[in-house]
């Protein structure tokens, strides 16, 4: 018997093709809940005049190395906090501590991306509202982080020279959403069969308006331009 209306249709006790069922038009965003929290995060950051950057890239592209250098260069000029996401370990937080900003590790364990609620939980316990710049280092992954808004103001994609020229074409969703693409490890260019102009063309095919910054955290190339970009709305 149907537990809802008491009729005797269908073969199962509870679930069956039920003649009383209703079709309901929803037209509702699947990520509505995440977007709602992200919206609140965005307003918190805006109210506190914080510039918030979501760094996304494949694992090993040099996000943490870029941030080490960034904190060394900007740490005494700006109030910077960094949230670093990884499935496990606090290795990245350990690397960044003492370099010139406040740092906290988020471990997602099974999850392949950060979501807005993970950032919301840090408002109060870690994010004080006094930061001028908050950098969120997302999980190293070129697919999943692109789908989840965190409340950030700027999406930054990193692309290392060792990854080849066509990563933006292979993973277009993430590169399309980024306002800036930072090319890392430029110091390795002499040792690679890698073409800067071809890479830039590929990025522009996916995202014609993206700003492209060529960097090496090792030699310092492009680091001033990158730091100026982080600070430009904070000056």
């Amino acid at each position, binding site marked *: 018997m149907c537990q809802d209306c008491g009729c005797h249709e269908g073969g199962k006790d509870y679930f069956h093709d*039920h003649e*009383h069922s209703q079709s*309901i038009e*929803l037209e509702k965003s699947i*990520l509505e809940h995440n977007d709602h929290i992200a919206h609140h995060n965005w307003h918190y950051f805006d109210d506190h005049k914080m510039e918030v950057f979501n760094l996304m890239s494949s694992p090993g592209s040099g996000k943490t190395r870029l941030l080490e250098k960034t904190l060394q260069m900007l740490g005494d000029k700006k109030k910077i906090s960094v949230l670093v996401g990884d499935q496990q370990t606090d290795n990245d937080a350990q690397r960044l501590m003492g370099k010139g900003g406040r740092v906290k590790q988020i471990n997602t364990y099974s999850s392949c991306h950060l979501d807005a609620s993970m950032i919301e939980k840090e408002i109060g316990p870690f994010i004080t509202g006094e930061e001028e710049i908050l950098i969120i280092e997302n999980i190293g992954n070129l697919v999943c982080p692109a*789908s989840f808004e965190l409340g950030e103001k700027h999406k930054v994609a990193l692309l290392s020279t060792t990854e080849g020229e066509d990563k933006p074409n292979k993973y277009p969703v993430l590169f399309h959403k980024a306002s800036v693409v930072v090319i890392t490890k430029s110091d390795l260019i002499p040792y690679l069969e890698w073409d800067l102009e071809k890479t830039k063309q590929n990025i522009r095919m*996916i995202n014609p308006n993206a700003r492209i910054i060529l960097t090496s955290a090792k030699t310092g190339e492009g680091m001033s331009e990158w730091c100026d970009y982080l600070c430009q709305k904070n000056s």
Partner: protein
Amino acid sequence: MHELSIARSVINSVEKICHDDHFGKVSEITLDIGTMSGVSKSALLFCWPLATKQTLLEECHLVINEIPLTLECLACNLKSSPEVFIMCCEHCGSGQVRIETGNELKIKNMEAY
């Protein structure tokens, strides 16, 4: 594999609607998933039976409409549907294009009782 998070978001949204509107069971859900949404249909179908266990959506039939990428050119006003994602008009070659469809990630409708 963020499709499990996507499945959970669908379940949470729909269970809330069921609670508010006094539905006891959902028999069918239709989703619109754009090719540029970053969500894989096959991965979502794979995790769906497990994600819906012991929810109001258990054994619910999942229908996924795949929405292709459509670009509208702001220069020549023509539309194109490239197979591979590229922000470029197939007709005049302009990069000044707007994504008209392909970003969808929504719950279209449901059958409930």
